[in-house]
């Protein structure tokens, strides 16, 4: 009797496992040519903007978008290796290089917001009220106040390095300078926990501010702090497997009037101010004026 029962159990278990496998095979059958790989920054995902835009795009066009959110540096590396179809990134110097080298085409301005320097309310380096962001960083360095860096080659990290270059200070390996090697959300959490300063895009900061009681905006408004997002199509000439039509469709969607209108109001209901400013068709030089 026991033997019979045990065999029955074994059969049941096998059948359940087999059903799971079969069910899995069915559900995973996503349409093939319809896939687009979008490599983008953590800020577009963590702010929730893509969660709003992508379903709309998918509904309009029937494409299936695989959003891979990594740092801008990694996103562009994926484009360079033909492992993504379209990029939405914010690291202008690196972007220009990518396009110049022929890996990306049709680079178009999508939107901007700005970077801000946040830090503990006590503000040990006394940077509050200082106009220039480079000056603020200099004061943080001079005060030996803890600064948390992304350290991940992202657009934010690239911007931070440009700002440090302006100050003439090499922060790497300094005791007060720590790198997380993680996304913006994680880095903000670390800064809040350790009461350090960090450079962040305003969108991510606003989106997760409710958990960051320890951090305040201490430096903002410097023209050097503009955070500009472009959409770039990966060059199909270099990589034949790139989904050309899908990539173009997504880029067109990002700069379309309808999408730009959504970007303009995104976040207003939740945070009281928009997280991004739509810029399609504008020139970079005119931003922030």
């Amino acid at each position, binding site marked *: 009797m026991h033997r019979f029962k045990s065999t029955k159990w074994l059969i049941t278990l096998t059948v359940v496992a087999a059903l799971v496998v079969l069910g899995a095979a069915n559900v*995973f059958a996503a349409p093939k040519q319809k896939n687009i*790989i979008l490599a983008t920054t953590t800020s577009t995902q963590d702010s929730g903007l893509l969660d709003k835009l*992508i379903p709309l795009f998918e509904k309009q066009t029937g494409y299936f978008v*695989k959003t*891979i959110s990594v740092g801008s540096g990694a996103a562009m590396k994926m484009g360079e*290796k033909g*492992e993504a179809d379209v990029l939405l990134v914010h690291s202008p110097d690196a972007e220009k290089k990518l396009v110049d080298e022929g890996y990306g085409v049709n680079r178009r301005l999508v939107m901007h917001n700005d970077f801000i320097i946040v830090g503990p309310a006590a503000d040990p380096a006394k940077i509050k009220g200082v106009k220039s962001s480079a000056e603020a960083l200099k004061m943080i360095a001079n005060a030996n106040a803890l600064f948390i860096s992304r350290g991940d080659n992202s657009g934010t990290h690239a911007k931070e390095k440009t700002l440090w270059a302006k100050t003439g200070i090499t922060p790497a390996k300094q005791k007060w300078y720590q790198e997380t090697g*993680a996304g913006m959300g994680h880095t903000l959490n670390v800064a809040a926990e350790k009461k350090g300063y960090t450079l962040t895009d305003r969108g991510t900061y606003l989106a997760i501010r409710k958990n960051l009681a320890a951090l305040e905006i201490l430096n903002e408004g410097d023209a050097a702090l503009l955070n500009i997002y472009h959409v770039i199509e990966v060059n199909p000439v270099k990589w034949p497997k790139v989904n050309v039509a899908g990539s173009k469709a997504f880029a067109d969607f990002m700069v379309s009037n309808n999408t730009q209108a959504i970007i303009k109001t995104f976040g207003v209901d939740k945070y009281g101010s928009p997280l991004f400013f739509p810029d399609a068709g504008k020139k970079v030089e005119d931003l922030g004026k």
Partner: protein
Amino acid sequence: MELIIQGIIKAFELLISFDPEVMSITWLSLKISGTATFISLFFGVSIGTAVALTNFPGKRLVISIINTGMGLPPVVVGLFVTILIWRNGPLGFLEILYTPYAMIVAQAIIATPIVMGISLASIQNLPPNLRLQILSLGASRMQMVWVLIKESKLPLLAAVMAGFGGVISEVGASIMVGGNIKGYSRVLTTATVMETGKGNFDIAIALGIILLILAFLVNLLLTHVQQRQHLR
């Protein structure tokens, strides 16, 4: 502490309300890790048994490699699988990067050595005379192997639990080869990492608790099967 309580409350809210997104993420985790464990069971038990029952030069070396594989770091597996299945990589024609299939492959690679190592040890642990006994009763070689596997059911089910536990809780490889795509390849572990990154600690804790409940239920079922055998 308050945060953990909030997380627990959130977990129950999400569970009781059958939140569709959480339900689909949970179901996907179960499907992917279940399938991967199933695959690892096939390769793990067959190769493990074969190695245990045959004698060949270098056997100890092979066993050492299998035992090392039991501690295979998931991120390293994720990295290698990613490079292999990149669309311009050697297996790119499969077009499975950033799909649940890729996650199954990576997780099966992680679980297989675990299952293999435990089945190898459990078969080796049977009294050596048993084999001779079975053969002398007129059993064929295949019948003998089958009896041996049945004899070590108890540790083999432990192998299933260890393999499943290893992959359902794994995040490094899943996020790399799956991409954490919403509604498609987002599982409990990758969603937990993402929500933590967003600073939504209550949801992150809730997802963690759901993961624990899921692992507990699966192990409860397996333990039930295992201990039934034992009572015989």
